């Protein structure tokens, strides 16, 4: 479980997050919805301890990570997988090497087990035959699936997605969303999805938090979003995609 308690963050004079309180339960999919540049991705980085808040607390499975040292954070981070918006694949490594990179780096596993886990993720992502290709030779959807495979290879409890369907064509988007849904059903994984596409929320999320001007203005099960009266939520429900 991940909890943010009254988290505030400033970059210079600009206040990005104001008193954000948020809970992500295990085995559920939580969406964070909001316009671009509002601080949604920042929330994911806070959850991983990649950046520190100016105030408030962040807890992962009951452990306060707010002021934890970088070296102590590594064990916490391995409980979560992260899929970055731009995939953040290592462009000089092949798909197989990308998938196995962190296993070789951080876990003392025999090479045979690493190869087996890589093969599982290749199969899961439907990338058989592309093992020795470089990321640049794959399509956007394929690269996203490699990034998901890389996040899953550690067998984390929770997976964090930063705009999982951004920049993808409708067919690839649909594939990625069904992949995310299958993770909870087949792997018992929880997930946090940051998105500005409201259809993604209704397609996969159990609950949704809406971030607007640095504050959470709605946090409840997805179905109740239709009942919200906030003018911003009414406007996004009518427009569907937040192009702000």
């Amino acid at each position, binding site marked *: 479980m991940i909890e943010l308690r009254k988290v505030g963050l400033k970059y210079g004079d600009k206040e990005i997050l104001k008193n954000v309180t948020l809970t992500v339960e295990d085995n559920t999919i939580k969406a964070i919805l909001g316009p671009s540049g509002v601080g949604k991705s920042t929330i994911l980085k806070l959850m*991983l301890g990649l950046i520190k808040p100016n105030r408030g607390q962040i807890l992962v499975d009951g452990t306060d990570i707010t002021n934890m040292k970088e070296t102590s954070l590594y064990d916490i981070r391995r409980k979560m997988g992260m899929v970055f918006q731009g995939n953040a694949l290592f462009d000089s490594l092949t798909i197989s090497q990308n998938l196995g990179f962190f296993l070789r780096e951080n876990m003392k596993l025999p090479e045979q087990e690493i190869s087996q886990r890589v093969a599982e993720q290749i199969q899961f992502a439907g990338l058989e035959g592309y093992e020795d290709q470089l990321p640049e030779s794959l399509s956007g959807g394929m690269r996203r699936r490699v990034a998901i495979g890389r996040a899953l290879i*550690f067998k984390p409890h929770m997976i964090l997605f930063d705009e999982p369907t951004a920049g993808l064509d409708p067919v690839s988007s649909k594939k990625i969303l069904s992949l995310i849904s299958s993770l909870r059903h087949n792997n018992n994984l929880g997930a946090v999805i940051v998105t500005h596409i409201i259809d993604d929320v209704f397609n996969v999320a159990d609950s949704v938090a809406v971030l607007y001007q640095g504050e959470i203005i709605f946090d409840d099960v997805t179905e109740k979003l239709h009942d919200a009266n906030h003018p911003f939520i009414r406007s996004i429900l009518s427009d569907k995609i937040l192009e702000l």
Partner: protein
Amino acid sequence: MPVMFIRGLGIKLVLQLKAFFLTMQEFFLFSVRAFMSFPKIIRYWRDVLDQATICGTDSIPIVLVSAISIGALLAIEVGNLLEDFGAKTMLGRSTALTVIRELGPLLMGLMLSARFGSRNGAELGAMQISEQIDALRAFGTDPIAKLVMPRLVAALIMFLPLTALSDFAGLQSASYMAEHYHRIDPGIFWNAVYPRLVAKDFVVGFLKAPVFAVIITLVSSFNGFSARGGTAGVGRSTIKGIVVSSGLVLIANFYVSKIVLENM
């Protein structure tokens, strides 16, 4: 109106100073973390070898070209000057001192600042803006130990032989020009070199190699890690890395010479 203008300038200056000191603090912590990662050298020995190839073996051509050209030019110019005083036989002595103490290491430092430093800045900057460095941290790998420490170790190891190579090539080209341009017998040239060189001359020259290695690697890597603002940001951070490290190499060159020559 002038009061407002002066106050505005004052505020701007204070903000710039604050930003400067914050950057210095970040750079200091970055450098400490890079040195503290040295125990992980066994884990990252392959990365050290890769970087040693990049900053060492691959840099040989540019180091040779610069050393040969400066050695040859030095021999011509200094030879002309010495001729006026009838002291052409001292060409070997003056060329050797200049090349071994100053120009050999300095040119190597500047060439590697441009070659190795720009590569570091661009590569790490591109990794930063494409979130690859965040990905390393997110999956539990220390990016400084993985990316910076191997570069630093490789530079510390490889800059020494490159300095020796630069000195050797510079002196050989000076000897060639002495023989073919000034008609000085090679025996006379080298006799003016060998017997007169003392340990101090080599200490001055070779002490600069590790100093330059630290400056170039840390400054360029820090700028790569600090890249923001897309591809233009990578360009800016790379240029900044080269300019700052080249400037620091020139300053360090002066102080290492001064300190060693005054104390040995």
